[in-house]
């Protein structure tokens, strides 16, 4: 919780005034958006104040009761009476001894002196109370009481001295005896009055101090109540200030904050919409968001929002769309949307909308630039490859052919990079190839694009064809995965590419015998494969994954990395049935006819792989003995390969 120091109070109140003025504009909407006022702070504050007041009240009640008891007992105490009795006893004892009777005036003298001495020395005395019990008299600290007590002691000393004199001289000198007796009586009387005064004084002091105590406690109670109130006000003000700051942030942010009611109408719109879309926030409230969205984006936005409303509370979704400016132009925006339908304070979807028109334009122009440069390089590399083709055709000398092969390999890898750049530029490429290509050729082309191609072994692929427009992309996608496999495994091991039909397409497996990946790395890699990002700097560092992700999305291909049971990593590539065809007009090896729509469900490896995965469990052992798991398909291929002869 924030607390404003006193120096800031002025500023805070100024902010508050400003906020109060602002309330005339946005304030009308605020009740619809209580999220902006910090209610929780206020509620907590109320609890603190109530607790404080209860505490103070309890202390007051307890203390008042205690004071009442003390006061009652204080009144009962009558020191004076006690002293008088003691003094009279002493006088009587003295006179009795003088008259020849048996008594102990010393003892009674001590009894007179003792309580006063104790009180003056700072001790406490237990005095008899009216009801027979005793009450403790606290040590005397008040100077007025002390003075009375000291006077009292002097008189007592004098009394005892007179008594001692009397005891000494006895009745021998009648005059002196008479004088001493008289003095004794006078002193007794004086003592009585002084003791009365002292007792009265003590009582008065006690009562006064009790009164003071009550006043102090009352004052304390009041003070604490006031403090609690002041703190409450301060916190309230801090809360208001916070709300004002937040509101000002919302008002001045370049992002739009929109709250959508579950029916799709705008329940709250931050005023920054004036800057972004040239519209007044108040005009938009109550109108459907769909009115602003570009007709082409309508479907996507509807889909995202519907999905979000049905998702768990607090779920978020992102979408990009175009919104119409008041002047008719379109602004490209990105929105982060949070489902707060179940939140009673919002009861809607909160959209954080950012205007990315300039960014989109910039990205577009960078993409165009990238595309143009890559296209030029592509043309040059293609020509270079044609030239190399011609040279290779007539070359018989093994050494020169070796050199040509090296050049060929470099140029092929260059072409792969260039074509990847074209993919990443985001510009849709002209479809160059229309007719279906044998899947095996695509895989071989992919292998040719990899640096360590000689380590790659292609094992029994089915006799299928791939749609021509996807052939290059699939080849590059496979090349990235094979490259990854060769890079992260020992140069002495092989990387195997194999395939098998599944219910909704064909799965290619790229298997390496490397050290594998940790679970975390694999999860990260799979995440990146599933969500290809827009072109940026980080992309150039991890081009491979982005390329794979982009290419996969473009053709509805699913790619997943898995741990290999004997170590290493298996990359699974699920080619959708829509891309596949059967070679030579024969039915596809896959049990599902080509053309069946690719199911958008996540790749359920456990199920879809069952048919092809099980027999492959023994593959490494079997490969050398009889590497023909798909003999039927291979024989077909052989027969077909022999066609040109006939």
């Amino acid at each position: 919780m924030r607390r404003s120091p006193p120096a800031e109070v002025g500023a805070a109140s100024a902010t508050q005034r400003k906020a109060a003025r602002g309330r005339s504009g946005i304030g009308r909407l605020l009740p619809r958006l209580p999220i902006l006022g910090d209610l929780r702070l206020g509620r907590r504050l109320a609890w603190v104040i109530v607790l404080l007041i209860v505490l103070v009240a309890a202390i007051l009640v307890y203390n008042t009761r205690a004071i009442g008891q003390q006061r009652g007992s204080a009144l009962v105490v009558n020191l004076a009476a006690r002293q008088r009795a003691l003094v009279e006893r002493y006088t009587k004892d003295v006179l009795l001894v003088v008259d020849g009777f048996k008594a102990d005036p010393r003892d009674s003298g001590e009894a007179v002196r003792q309580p006063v001495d104790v009180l003056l020395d700072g001790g406490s005395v237990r005095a008899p109370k009216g009801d027979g019990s005793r009450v403790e008299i606290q040590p005397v600290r008040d100077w007025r009481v002390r003075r009375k007590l000291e006077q009292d002691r002097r008189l007592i000393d004098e009394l005892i001295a007179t008594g001692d004199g009397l005891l000494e001289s006895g009745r021998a000198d009648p005059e002196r005896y008479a004088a001493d007796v008289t003095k004794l009586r006078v002193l007794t009387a004086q003592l009585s009055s002084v003791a009365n005064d002292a007792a009265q004084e003590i009582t008065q002091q006690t009562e006064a101090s009790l009164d003071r105590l009550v006043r102090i406690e009352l004052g304390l109670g009041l003070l604490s109540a006031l403090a609690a109130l002041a703190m409450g006000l301060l916190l309230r003000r801090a809360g208001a200030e916070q709300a004002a700051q937040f509101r000002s942030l919302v008002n001045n942010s370049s992002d739009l904050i929109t709250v959508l009611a579950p029916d799709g109408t705008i329940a709250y719109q931050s005023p920054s919409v004036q800057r972004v879309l040239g519209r007044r926030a108040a005009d938009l409230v109550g109108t459907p968001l769909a009115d602003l969205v570009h007709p082409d984006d309508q479907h996507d936005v509807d889909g995202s929002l519907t999905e979000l409303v049905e998702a768990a509370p607090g779920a978020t979704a992102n979408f990009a769309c175009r919104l119409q400016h008041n002047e008719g132009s379109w602004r490209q925006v990105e929105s982060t949307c949070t489902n707060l339908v179940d939140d009673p304070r919002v009861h809607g979807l909160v959209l954080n909308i950012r205007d990315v028109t300039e960014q989109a334009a910039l990205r577009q122009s960078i993409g165009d630039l990238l595309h143009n440069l890559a296209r030029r390089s592509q043309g040059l590399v293609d020509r270079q490859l044609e030239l190399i083709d011609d040279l290779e055709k007539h070359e018989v000398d093994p050494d020169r052919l070796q050199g040509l092969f090296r050049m060929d390999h470099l140029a092929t890898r260059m072409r792969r990079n260039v074509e990847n750049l074209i993919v990443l530029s985001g510009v849709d490429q002209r479809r160059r190839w229309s007719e279906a290509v044998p899947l095996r050729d695509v895989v071989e082309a992919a292998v040719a694009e990899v640096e360590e191609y000689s380590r790659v072994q292609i094992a029994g692929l089915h006799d299928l064809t791939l749609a021509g427009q996807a052939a290059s992309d699939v080849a590059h996608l496979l090349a990235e995965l094979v490259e990854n496999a060769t890079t992260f495994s020992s140069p002495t091991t092989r990387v195997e590419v194999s395939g098998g039909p599944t219910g909704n397409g064909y799965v290619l497996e790229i298997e390496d015998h490397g050290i594998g990946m940790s679970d975390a790395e694999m999860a990260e890699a799979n995440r990146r494969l599933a969500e290809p990002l827009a072109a940026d700097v980080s992309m150039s560092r991890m081009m491979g994954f982005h390329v794979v992700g982009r290419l996969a999305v473009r053709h509805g291909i699913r790619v997943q990395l898995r741990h290999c049971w004997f170590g290493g990593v298996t990359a699974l590539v699920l080619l959708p049935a829509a891309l596949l065809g059967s070679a030579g007009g024969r039915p596809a090896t896959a049990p599902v006819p080509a053309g069946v729509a690719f199911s958008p469900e996540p790749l359920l490896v456990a199920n879809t792989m069952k048919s092809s995965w099980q027999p492959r469990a023994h593959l490494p052992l079997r490969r050398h003995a009889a590497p023909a798991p798909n003999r039927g398909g291979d024989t077909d291929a052989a027969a077909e390969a022999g066609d040109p002869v006939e």
Partner: protein
Amino acid sequence: MSGSGADEGGRTWSRHYRRPYTVTGGRTRPAHDDLELEALVQTVTGIDEQLAGLGREQRSIAGLCREVVSIAEISARLDLLLGVTRVIVGDMALQGVVVLYRPQATVADADLPPVELLERVLHGLRNIS
């Protein structure tokens, strides 16, 4: 080669994207030194059982060489590079899939007819046609 998909420029996707160096794993030197282009190749009869374990080019060559064919002819008919064909055929011969009939090069150089004689024969042949 079983490429398909004719398109612009008459080149197929496969010819464009498949590279010859992958066929031999980059090797250019045949197992037999200086395997002659005119050497004849014939598939061993009854070898069909083993064909399944071979690569695509090897199977094509085995299919083609049921009759005796020269290496140069294999290269031309299967659209394979000469250098690559030589390496593959050499390997297949080592594996016992094909038999090679190499020209008799064991004749001593001194026994060969002089170059002038051969040139005269060549002229004579040209004059005939």
